[in-house]
């Protein structure tokens, strides 16, 4: 078994499966998890999956009216 490949595939699968919910609190809690992996992982495929999911969460936050939180996460992605 290729453990490294297996690890990457599992991370991407987990990230893609995230459902943010419909409250600012729920979305923020899940975004923290995605941001954690985004910041510590060094595989480009994992980072890409995280980035895609982060923008999905940011869009929901904006719809829920939390522009400040959305902007904060957007800025972290750009850093």
């Amino acid at each position: 078994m290729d453990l490294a490949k297996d690890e990457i595939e599992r991370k991407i699968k987990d990230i893609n499966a995230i459902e943010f919910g419909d409250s600012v609190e729920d979305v923020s809690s899940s975004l923290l998890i995605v941001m954690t992996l985004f910041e510590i992982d060094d595989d480009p495929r994992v980072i890409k999956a995280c980035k895609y999911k982060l923008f999905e969460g940011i869009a929901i936050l904006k719809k829920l009216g939390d522009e400040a939180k959305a902007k904060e996460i957007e800025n972290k992605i750009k850093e």
Partner: protein
Amino acid sequence: MLSHLVYVSVRKKECTDEEIDKILSACKRNNPKLDITGVLLYSKTHFLQYLEGDYKEISGLYEKIKTDDRHKNVVLITTGPIEERTFPSWEMGSKEISEDKVEFQTDLTEAEAKTFQDIISGKNQEGNKSLHLIKKFFK
């Protein structure tokens, strides 16, 4: 192959402290049979679990944990081989995290307690990468 696995997840509102006690009881009952050790950290909104044991055993346990409805959005942070266990005497320790103070409710050796305390306080900068994220995640 001795390995470790770290995941994080969102604690559901329905998951009370009593439910966490049940989780820990199940860990203490089942993990010794699988030769799995580790630590479960939790806040009001998140879980972070560090598992160590045979790769197949901890991978199988992880897939089972993912189906537990006391949490959601379970994400694998890291997994891979390790040379030795970090918490060899800990069938599943636990701690509700606060930044400033860590008090252990479980039996562990002085060396393990010091390792953990150093990680939480940020003093241990040479150890395992996955353990360092414990502090980062709960900050």
